[in-house]
């Protein structure tokens, strides 16, 4: 009987790598200039939203409406802060994630029946309905939205000097934890079945696996990630408005997901950082051509790197090389 070493990085390797990276970022953040920590904070928070899209992509569908859960998470956190006085940063992340999940859950069974263009259009429509509702809801500030004050951490208020770094640290830790969770999910039996669903739904059903349940679960988990990302974003940004749910916002999250590919969690955050870097530098130096660059970049990736930048290291790794024996 063949005794085979497990292919791919072991679970402990992923965990150690993830924790090490998080720790390194936390340390580095103390020495980086404020604009850079803010940029990384946004990249991490928004990366979570794109991570949700990647989760669904592993099942074979692309959501064009992830802005919906992004907005709900952000509005929920901001409202919990403003109306109920809940101020703990991590607590607000949970509020955002859970509220987004609760709103998404009723739609999960329905959406689990759709694929391709129709899945994309239905998710898009739902996010635009939310946009339309939010714009006209005066109590939420209408199209202007409203501002949010500073959250607290461990009961402590955050002073001017520390707030940037503390929120950065909270975001990095939460994103890191969810990223590790995502990695575990990808490697789990449910995660593998998701990939199988993308490849051949028929065979999954014949083996006794439920395709619709897999898709619905992906959708709900993606909602949590999106909501958490929304909460983290609004806390650092200090402001929320209906554009969080607009289709162009969803488009940016899709861009990051496509750029990253669906194999590596780390790639999602790298891709998100790339977008934030381009966004920041562009507004300074080339405000009228940054979308052009994004568009060209996207075409390049679609044409030459169809499995995303993650494929650059995942596919080349020794345990992935196909052909011949081992």
């Amino acid at each position, binding site marked *: 009987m063949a005794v085979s070493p497990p292919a791919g990085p072991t679970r402990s390797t992923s965990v150690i790598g993830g924790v090490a990276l998080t720790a390194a970022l936390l340390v580095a953040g103390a020495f980086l200039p404020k604009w850079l920590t803010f940029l990384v904070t946004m990249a991490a928070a928004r990366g979570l939203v794109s991570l949700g899209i990647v989760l669904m992509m592993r099942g074979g569908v692309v959501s064009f409406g992830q802005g919906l859960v992004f907005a709900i998470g952000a509005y929920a956190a901001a409202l919990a802060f403003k109306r109920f006085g809940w101020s703990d940063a991590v607590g607000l992340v949970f509020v955002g994630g859970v509220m987004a999940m609760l709103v998404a859950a009723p739609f999960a069974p329905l959406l689990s029946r759709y694929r391709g263009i129709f899945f994309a259009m239905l998710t898009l429509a739902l996010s635009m309905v939310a946009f339309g509702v939010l714009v006209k809801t005066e109590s939420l500030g209408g199209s202007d939205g409203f501002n949010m004050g500073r959250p607290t951490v461990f009961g402590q208020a955050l002073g001017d000097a520390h707030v940037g770094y503390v929120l950065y640290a909270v975001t990095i830790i939460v994103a890191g934890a969810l990223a590790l969770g995502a990695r575990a999910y990808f490697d*789990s*039996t449910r995660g593998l*079945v998701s990939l*199988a669903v993308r*490849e051949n739904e028929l065979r999954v059903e014949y083996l006794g696996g439920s395709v619709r349940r897999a898709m619905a679960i992906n959708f709900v988990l993606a909602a949590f990630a999106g909501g958490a990302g929304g909460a983290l974003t609004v806390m650092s940004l200090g402001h929320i408005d209906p554009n969080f749910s607009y289709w162009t916002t969803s488009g940016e999250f899709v861009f990051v997901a496509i750029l990253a590919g669906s194999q590596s969690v780390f790639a999602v955050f790298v891709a998100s950082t790339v977008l934030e870097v381009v966004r920041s530098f562009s507004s300074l130096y080339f405000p009228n051509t940054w979308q052009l660059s994004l568009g060209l970049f996207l075409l390049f990736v679609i044409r030459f790197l169809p499995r995303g930048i993650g494929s650059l290291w995942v596919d080349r790794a020794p345990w992935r090389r196909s052909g011949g024996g081992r």
Partner: protein
Amino acid sequence: MSGAAPLLRATGIEKRFGALVAASEIEISIAAGERVSLIGSNGAGKTTLVNMITGYLKPDAGSIALAGRDITALHPRAIARLGVARSFQVPQLYPALSVLENMLVAIACRGERLSFWQAARRADALHGADALLERFGLAEHRERRVAELPGGVRKLLDVAMALTGQPQLLLLDEPTSGVSAEEKFPMMDIIMTALGAVPMTVLFVEHDMDIVSRYADRVIAFASGRIIADAAPALALASDDVRRHVTGAPGPG
């Protein structure tokens, strides 16, 4: 015959698609451990029966029982989880995944509840997958992406996946179709040998009568939705009806 209840029992099965009679007065009783070949020309009703056993088609009349339990109205997934496994004429695999991953998916689906946390590549799953791959001679292809594999290997993998979770009843849909003449017997040998490790009840749809006479204990022949023979291969293949409708003249019966 031990006298024990049959593993699979189909009674009074009727199925029509408009004017087309896909199944009529079908009565089948299969004991555990039997190896039964379903023969008949295209459209004779073999695949319809397979689809009804696996639950994807519901008969217009009649019932199907697995180990005494009525499965006629069950959801296909429930039937699969009761231990009915199927392989496909055109292999249904996960092309972008490796051979090992294909097996792991099968093991996961057939196993206990799927987990959000438990690794797909945990030790017991890997052992199970590797054991089956060994039995089918597929161990050397373990890490290869299915899309890159030749046809014969894909067919074997398709059957190997069906064997995960120790099914009670295995339905093989034309296991040697699409395989070159020299490869047919070796392939069937591999499959039957692999099955021989555990007592397994097998229904296989086949068009090649040499394969049928060599590997089947019993032959059930179909024509126009009816059973025209149900006997040991030597008898069944020699019958006039079978010669006329199945093996003799070309074209649909």
